[in-house]
């Protein structure tokens, strides 16, 4: 796909790192950290009370039945932070295009947005919302979006894995193994509610990797059912026979394997059949990302006890080539989804309980490359969205006249400061125990009083 990064997944990169262990980590990503949470035990848990098949991470000694109890009894009125990750690197030049900056069109002769594209960003007339970010622009107009037009950290690392790792663990340390939200859950969570930290992308996000509390991942918000052309009462008989296939004696390991899976499948169908369905008060765009958010809103409404939720944005943002098209599609699907999610929460009266944070591991190089794309840069962008968001820009867009020593956009806000404010102002938890060096960061106001 791209000749720079070869579209590695992290596990593939870990494999190739292992393959080259004889001479250290691979040069392509020197010193690449291991993702937080690597090695946490994983068990599949079928929660009747949640209506979901959960992969539970950590806390391997706790019996699964305790999770059922824990989910059913956990408090359901906590504030919730939803993290949306733009995977690959996105920045203000893409989302809040500096069409008013004279160097913008010089650096991006092919990719620059037209001076009248999208809508003006009211807090800085040099910037315009990308047309695909119209969903965010709408919410910003309502005072529900705090924008970070140039977020990052000093001496930015341009490795996807290393920089993403820093954001995930909330510090600049390649050796740390718990996520910043994982440490929050270690402080405030409990031992029998894996839903307190929920990843919606099928596997654990390193951001919610804990030291000792259970957290969970789900593949699908649609519950668990078996398709069939048969209805009651004949379907009852059909499933009875299916269950019998699972309970007859086995005379070989292969047969035993089939029988075991058959019995478990029938059990799960019985436990969860029909529970995963949800309805939404508003209509969502027809994308997988939006469907997950629609499910999430329904889960919150149903009282599932979540505190932090992670989900990947629609699309990929490592736009080394053909940036215009790839970025527009993913950004539109993501921003439309976030807008619909906010409207859903408002319609359900839950919008005061949920804050959404959108982030990326870094920004792009201001100067476009020869493949109609952009390479890895420094300052990225982030947004905090919600009815309770303060709605004021944090840090200014530093302009393109003066770039850093690598010709990248300079950083004007630190991601750890954003985390400190979210912890203290939204989650109402002291940041000092979560973010190393928290006292050194000035706290931007992110939440309305």
């Amino acid at each position, binding site marked *: 796909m791209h000749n720079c990064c070869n579209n590695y997944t992290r*596990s593939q990169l870990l494999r190739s790192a292992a393959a080259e262990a004889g001479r250290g980590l691979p040069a392509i990503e020197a010193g690449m950290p291991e993702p937080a949470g690597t090695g946490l035990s994983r068990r599949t848990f079928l929660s009747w009370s949640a209506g979901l098949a959960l992969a539970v991470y950590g806390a391997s000694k706790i019996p699964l039945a305790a999770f059922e109890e824990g989910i059913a009894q956990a408090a359901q009125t906590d504030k919730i932070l939803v993290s949306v990750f733009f995977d690959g690197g996105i920045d203000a030049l893409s989302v809040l295009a500096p069409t008013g900056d004279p160097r913008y069109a010089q650096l991006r002769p092919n990719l620059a947005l037209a001076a009248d594209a999208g809508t003006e960003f009211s807090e800085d007339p040099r910037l315009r919302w990308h047309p695909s970010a119209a969903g965010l622009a709408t919410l910003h107009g309502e005072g529900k979006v705090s924008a970070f037009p140039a977020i990052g950290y000093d001496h930015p690392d341009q490795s996807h894995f290393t920089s993403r790792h820093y954001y995930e663990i909330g510090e600049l340390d390649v050796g740390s193994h718990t996520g910043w939200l994982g440490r929050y859950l270690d402080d405030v969570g409990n031992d029998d509610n894996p839903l307190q930290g929920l990843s919606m992308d099928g596997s654990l996000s390193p951001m919610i990797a804990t030291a000792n509390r259970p957290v969970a991942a789900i593949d699908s918000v649609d519950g668990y059912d078996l398709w069939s052309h048969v209805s009651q009462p004949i379907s009852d008989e059909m499933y009875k026979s299916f269950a019998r296939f699972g309970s007859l004696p086995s005379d070989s390991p292969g*047969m035993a394997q089939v029988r075991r899976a058959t019995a478990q499948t029938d059990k799960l169908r019985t436990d969860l059949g029909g529970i995963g369905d949800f309805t939404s008060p508003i209509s969502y765009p027809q994308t997988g990302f939006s469907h997950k958010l629609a499910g999430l809103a329904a889960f919150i409404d149903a009282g599932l006890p979540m505190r932090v939720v992670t989900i990947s944005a629609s699309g990929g943002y490592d736009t080394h080539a053909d940036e215009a098209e790839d970025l527009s599609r993913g950004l539109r699907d993501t921003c439309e989804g976030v807008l619909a999610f906010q409207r859903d929460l408002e319609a359900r009266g839950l919008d005061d309980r949920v804050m959404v944070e959108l982030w990326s591991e870094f920004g792009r190089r201001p100067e476009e490359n020869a493949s109609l794309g952009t390479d890895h840069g420094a300052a990225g962008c982030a947004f905090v969205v919600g009815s309770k968001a303060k709605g004021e820009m944090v840090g200014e867009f530093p302009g393109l006249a003066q770039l850093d020593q690598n010709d990248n956009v300079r950083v004007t806000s630190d991601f750890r400061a954003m985390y400190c404010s979210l912890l203290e102002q939204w989650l109402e938890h002291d940041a000092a125990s979560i973010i190393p060096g928290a006292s050194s960061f000035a706290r931007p106001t992110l939440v309305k009083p």
Partner: protein
Amino acid sequence: MAIPQATASASGPKGASKPKRHRPRHWHLWKDKHYRWVPDGDCGWRVQSYVVRHKHKPPRRHHRGPGPRPADRCAPNAAAGPAPLLDPDPRPPGTYQGPFGPAQATRLLQRAGFGALPGQAEQLASLGLLGAVRSLTRPSGSATLHGPAPVDDDGNPIAPADAWGHDHLWFLDRMVRSDQPLVERMALVLHDWFATSNANVSKQQQMIDQSNLFRSACFGSFLDLFEAVTVDPAMLQWLNGAENTKQAPNENYAREMMELFSLGADRGAYSEDDIREQARALTGWRYDWSNELGAHNFRFDPKRHDTSVKTVFDIAGNWSWQDACRLCVENPLHPSFFVEKLWSYFIPQPPSSSTGDGLISTYRGSGWAIRPVLEAILTSPDLYQGPPMVKPPVVQLAGMLRSLGRGIDTYAWAWLCDEAGQMLFWPPNVSGWDDTRWLDTSRLRARWNIVNYAIDEISVDAWNGTYSATETAEEALARAMGAWGSPSLRDEHRAELLDLARRSEKLATASWQQGPYRAMRQNALLQLIGISPDLILQ
């Protein structure tokens, strides 16, 4: 706290509720009638109309089928009576000595192919054990594809090189239609053995080219195959073979070529030093990149090759990439790795040490030829008398489509197989698919849904008032078994299905229930035959 339940969907008469169907959601569908070839119950085809649900408004004059009549689906000489007996009994010592009838031929076709078409097991049995195996391992000429060509949901030809998932459909189609099933099965074996993924290959066509390399080389010399794979464009991208230069060696391929492809880890066959030295021997391959062509112009560049002496397995020399392959194959621990790995694809329990030794001497004696080892495995008593093994998802699906006489006509097979754990050309990593993990609650659920999708066209509408109100339980089971091409079921499974048929019949008390309940019973039987252990195992 439960998620609120959806209200029951459409109800049948007198409150009997129809279950909700979960399908990809398409808000607007344009339905029209298309025509296709379906099996005529014998060896030929008849035209059948069916309703196509277009996701996009189709042009007024689009292709509605059925296209040219496909070739007959039975093997050409099936109708010409039994083939001459080729079985030179007595069979060689060490081979399976028991009866070789349709049951054994069926198992052979399941393990060495994708199951039998109607009449095929009998025809194969008539060749005798050795003749049957050789008919698979020594096919003549190029393969012929019998049956309708693969199409997407709109009836358009598939685009394996361009459309996501269509490469999966392309391979699946060959499994369903090729008259050289073992070639396709070996292409699948080698796809797992040398597992390469689209995840790090720039063009689907390069994956298809690699798959065709497996087809052409699957019976020949393993060394020839190994060399070809080593410099195959997809592999050079996947394991960084083209990023391996004398200035900056990349050890990715050097490690996997020994660990996964030829020698095995933790057997004392090679050291970390051997990996570094092999990597240097392999240096020199490169390609060009363009956004239009992706990686292309793969070539050996002597300037990038490390020409100094390398010491591999304590043998020093100015080794080349061909030497790197040869040294692996000549390693004393290679033959045992090779025969046991190949064996594991066909027989679930490992070979006894005497059987293993025999295979090793066959392999050595043939100069590392694959075919003699394959023939020894496929004539082994363990294959016919040993326990069954779980079919990989695509093998089960291909076999089902063959039994049902259905060609590739929907893109759903790509994502359904993905859910079942086997998206072709996307193995999970370089060690291929984990054969011990084909079945869990989410993957068996996917297989259930695959069965449901496979029988979609032959399922009965319970509520249109046309189904027989008098069909007996025995007739119902016979009908469902016939639709599945009469697979052999274990007695206890057949008994359970017959019991289901009888239980269902008792539930129909009112006269309006007689036909609809029997129709649903038919659908239930079709579903359960497809998801029975007999169809999951091979």
